């Protein structure tokens, strides 16, 4: 394992210290609880949007803290969900009196830890009551959906949701409306990913999974969870066709509809290749009569240094586009300010 770090056990703490040093104007880092917070403290009267999860997916979530997006991110160990104490601390540190929305990706660990945190806050032992709501993102169509299982993983839609709901919170939407909007964004979006290589968790020291020199993993998860199938490497146009058709059909996209499209790198794929993929994705959507209202190309939800990409499509409408276009000022996403 070759990585730019010191002791693998310290990687998250040191990266957070680096974020604090690099963005002192915008971010405040609580190293004890491993939280990234807005520099300004809680915003009175605004719903606070709090997310978190395992580290290693940067810029998700810590890089999305700031005006127009998150109020705090709880950073777990690499690929390990944060613990309830972190979520409780984030919730208390960001509440501006209008309640807190937890954005949780659908992994058992994240669900249970956020749930315990919510119980602790609700119990009110450590502070005044806080109005809470939570949304669970589960947009990964690589996983079969079923009421018998935990269901689908939360991936790329999480970024778009944090952006859009963050904007609504900035407009002082009340908690129930923010919550309903978040549920709607999650319902309207789907994703699928593929990997050319594995990644290596620093503490583990070796690759999470094995792939042959001519193989790729279709439907991979952002922690290196195996996907739908290991298949031979294919040209970008075929890879794009697999991803787009899986997402499009699951979403039931029809001719004449339009989407926000996210062509996302998993960390180790050059931007040059992501734009080749973007070209194919746009071509395929045009061919299907689906318009692309907004487009993001780059590393937004990563899996350490994994090579590969994901495609997220979010059915667009006027409200979502307006909120998406609203100002945002975070290290990972910025416009309008």
């Amino acid at each position: 394992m070759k990585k730019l770090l010191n002791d693998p056990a310290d990687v998250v703490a040191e990266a957070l210290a680096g974020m604090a040093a690099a963005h002192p104007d915008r971010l405040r880092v609580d190293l004890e609880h491993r939280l990234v917070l807005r520099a300004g403290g809680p915003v009175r009267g605004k719903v606070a949007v709090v997310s978190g999860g395992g580290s290693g997916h940067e810029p998700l979530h810590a890089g999305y803290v700031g005006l127009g997006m998150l109020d705090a991110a709880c950073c777990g160990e690499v690929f390990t969900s944060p613990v309830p104490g972190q979520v409780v601390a984030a919730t208390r540190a960001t509440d501006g009196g209008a309640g807190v929305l937890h954005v949780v990706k659908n992994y058992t660990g994240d669900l249970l830890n956020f749930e315990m945190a919510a119980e602790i806050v609700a119990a009110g032992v450590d502070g005044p009551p806080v109005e809470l709501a939570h949304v669970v993102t589960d947009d990964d169509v690589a996983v079969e959906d079923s009421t018998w299982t935990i269901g689908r993983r939360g991936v790329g839609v999480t970024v778009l949701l944090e952006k859009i709901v963050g904007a609504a919170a900035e407009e002082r939407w009340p908690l129930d409306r923010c919550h309903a909007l978040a549920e709607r964004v999650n319902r309207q979006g789907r994703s699928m990913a593929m990997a050319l290589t594995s990644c290596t968790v620093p503490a583990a020291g070796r690759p999470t999974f094995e792939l042959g020199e001519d193989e790729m993993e279709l439907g991979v998860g952002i922690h290196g969870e195996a996907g739908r199938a290991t298949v031979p490497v294919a040209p970008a146009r075929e890879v794009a066709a697999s991803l787009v058709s899986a997402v499009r059909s699951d979403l039931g996209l029809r001719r004449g509809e339009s989407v926000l499209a996210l062509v996302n790198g998993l960390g180790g794929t050059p931007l040059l290749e992501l734009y080749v993929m973007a070209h194919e994705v746009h071509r395929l959507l045009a061919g299907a009569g689906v318009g692309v209202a907004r487009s993001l190309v780059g590393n937004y939800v990563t899996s350490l240094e994994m090579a590969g990409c994901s495609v997220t499509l979010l059915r667009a409408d006027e409200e979502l586009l307006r909120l998406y276009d609203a100002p945002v000022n975070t290290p990972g996403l910025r416009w309008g300010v």
Partner: protein
Amino acid sequence: MADLESFRAWVADASATLTDQAEHLTDLDRAIGDGDHGTNMARGFAACAALDPEAGYNGIDAYLKMVGMTLVSTVGGASGPLYGTFFLRLAGPLAAADEVGVHQVGQALRAGVEGVVARGKAQLGDKTMYDALAPALEAFDEASRDGQDLASCLEAAALAAAAGRDATEPLVARKGRASYLGERSAGHIDPGASSATLLIEAAARTLV
């Protein structure tokens, strides 16, 4: 009869065993999960084993609650809240006791396992730690009804847990990260069922 020292010995034994088996558990988790179960468990139990014996928890129940809170705040992932809840709930039936026998340990175990189900909603055959814990509880109860002593009951539980763990191998996971794999999760032993077995085995060595 088991006293506070026994429970502390249990946690110490569990910590040593989990550190020892961390790589094995992580390998199991790498196959059908994300390869952190061993690291998570070893980190959490090391923190529990390091709890200051003088730190003011008077009685078994307070100690177990402390262990549960420590697990919740150090393990992370799915297993942190689940094992945390397990230990928090264990404490209930043991309130205010200085020494506990078969009957109380049986009640505590039931409360703990029910806590895991309440938290994780797993059913038998979902390929989770519950597939080791449920048969362990059943075997304990049966041995207890047969009038066996605490050591024998825990030994029976440990054997049943191991059998339950092994029986997870052919299963298709329906809960936890392994469920994303669908059919491809079959053919691997569940890491949580393995760590649960290690915990019960440690109890059989120490809660006497």
